[in-house]
């Protein structure tokens, strides 16, 4: 075990990595980590397991999918058993063996790291711990890449994150032309940089100044925001019963795209599959956009209508979650749902509608 769980004290070190040495560092880190990172595929930029020889893509504006899948794959085996009654332990479920050796996600966006912190509130609670998510989370080192030039869809600064956000990251890399400067944010991050083993220590004050200059420049590029400041003062029922939901939902085709590309959407389904006598219990991403999501076996469905499902998504992100956890909205402003929605339902517009809603009666 390379990672030490105990805190070694607050580190604030900066390391300069010459881009010429980058590939070497990545190769070094493979010795101790399963690597994940952005990869360009025909479908766009995805966050994937980096196979041997593949470097993380370090110049990209948006990735279609977020880094949530590193902890929470779209389809994941959780339990297994045999249905063969001649076996002694038939029908007795066992946990599936998963490789939780150290992982590192390299080149992820800061807003995705923030999103993982929000998802953590769901999977790591005082009552229950989701062992699959938590084990993967603990095994993972998060190496972020700051966004020097935020894209059009980025509104992270108004959603509790930002192009240089540090929340949830172990290392934050900033691209400075011919080099990366790495800010080490945790012990896990220090361990990663030790194994990466290229780069030289930089002056802390000077580096922080450089980071601040780039951060301010980047933040200036973010042109849009999500407005949620007045939502706290409106009750759940007041917003739930507001008259605008039919209009918001009209164009929705109830695909789950927004929820699948969202780095903070954590809902899942549990399914059993059997091949011959080997039975596996899976969990798959699920989506509140599907009517099946809430449909009772009796046929009764509390969110039968499209409007109810669209409302659920926005209310969950902008009202239920903030009210329940008091940690802000369940959105980090990555803009993926805005970009991917086939019918252009824009969370910024919906938030504005909710935020400014005043019942005139």
């Amino acid at each position, binding site marked *: 075990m390379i990672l030490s769980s105990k805190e070694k004290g607050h580190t604030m070190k900066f390391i300069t990595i010459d881009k010429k040495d980058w590939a070497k560092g990545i190769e070094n880190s493979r010795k101790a980590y399963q690597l994940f990172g952005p990869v360009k595929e025909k479908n*766009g930029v995805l966050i994937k397991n980096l196979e041997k020889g593949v470097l993380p893509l370090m110049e990209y504006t948006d990735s279609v999918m977020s880094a949530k899948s590193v902890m929470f794959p779209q*389809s994941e085996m959780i339990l297994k058993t045999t249905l063969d009654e001649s076996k002694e332990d038939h029908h007795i479920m066992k946990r599936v063996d998963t490789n939780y050796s150290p992982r590192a996600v390299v080149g992820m966006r800061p807003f995705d790291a923030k999103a993982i912190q929000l998802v953590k509130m769901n999977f790591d609670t005082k009552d229950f711990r989701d062992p699959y998510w938590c084990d993967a989370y603990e095994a993972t080192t998060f190496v972020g890449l700051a966004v020097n030039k935020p894209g059009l869809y980025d509104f992270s600064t108004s959603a509790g994150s930002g192009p240089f956000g540090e929340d949830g990251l172990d290392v934050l890399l900033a691209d400075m032309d011919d080099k990366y400067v790495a800010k080490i944010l945790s012990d896990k991050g220090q361990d990663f940089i030790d194994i990466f083993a290229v780069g030289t220590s930089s002056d802390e004050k000077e580096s922080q100044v450089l980071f601040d200059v780039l951060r301010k420049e980047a933040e200036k590029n973010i042109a849009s925001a999500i407005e949620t400041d007045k939502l706290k003062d409106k009750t759940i029922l007041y917003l739930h019963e507001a008259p605008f939901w039919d209009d918001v939902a009209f164009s929705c085709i109830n695909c789950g795209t927004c929820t*699948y590309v969202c780095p903070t959407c954590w809902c899942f389904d549990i399914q059993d599959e059997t091949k011959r006598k080997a039975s596996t219990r899976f969990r798959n991403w699920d989506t509140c956009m599907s009517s099946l999501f809430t449909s009772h076996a009796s046929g009764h469905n509390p969110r039968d209508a499209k409007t109810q499902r669209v409302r659920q998504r926005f209310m969950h992100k902008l009202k239920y979650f903030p009210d329940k956890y008091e940690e802000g909205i369940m959105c980090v402003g990555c803009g993926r749902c805005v970009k991917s929605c086939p019918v252009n339902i824009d969370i910024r517009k919906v938030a504005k509608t909710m935020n400014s809603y005043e019942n005139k009666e």
Partner: protein
Amino acid sequence: MNTCTKRIREIASALLEKKEVEKVIGFATGTIPMASNPIVVTSKQDVEKLVFNSTCGLNLANYIRNHKGKIAVIAKGCDARNIVTHVIENQADREKLHIIGVPCSGMIDKNKVASLFKDDIVEFIEDGDTATIKSATKEETINKKDYLRHNCSLCTHKNPVIYDDLACDEGEEQSLEIPYPDVDAIQSLDANAKWQHFQELTKNCIRCYSCRNARPLCYCPTCFVDEAGPQWVGKGQDETDVNTFHFLRAFHCAGRCTDCGACVEACPMDINVRDFTRKLNKDSFELFGWEAGLDTTRRPPLDSYSPDDPNDFIK
């Protein structure tokens, strides 16, 4: 504002004013460049929201089911063909539909346009046959016809086949010597290469079902992928299950698909699911001389039975 948009607004406004329809279904300008947003307009002042341009790539026939009163709908060539299909399949009552037909000059391929830029497009302005596109770092002017979606470049039914009003003049239809070059190319592959092609095609499908939901053909109350008793297909990412979804979805559309391209437009993973449906369209054409959505009096070939069917198995 283009003349077509202007005319759509005039027609919509008159229909609402005279209370001939309760609502008008059309497109509004999106919140992001190259996007449009299907909307429903019920009042005269909201008519100003209606637009029509080459980013209106979804199919509005998808929005005409389950309305009580009479509605108007904006229909480009393929939307109109899907309205015909809806009428044949009893999903829409022709009497309760006022179709505002829009002869279409094709929808732009948003990915192809985006590929001209390294950074995000921040502005897309159309002017007749050209469009000017800006990102933070550069500006490009394109001829729209060079950047049409693949289905639009092969379209032979740009003019609505059915309408009550026309929003602009009809254009000349192209005739194609080779109507299915893409299908021919796949057909010419050997079995292994074909298999490889389709494996590559559906790789990274996230099963969001936006292809299914964007197309007007899929209106089953419970889709076979959602059916729990019996469960026809697994719900995970196993490639057999992913492919089963795509294959069956395509077969359910045989003889009904108008190649409107809404499925591809909607796919967040840029999967050209038309590779499946186009083959079936070609077969329908070659085996039955059939193109979907051209005639409100004839049912699709795989949906009709006749005692003099030449095949023995059906007797």
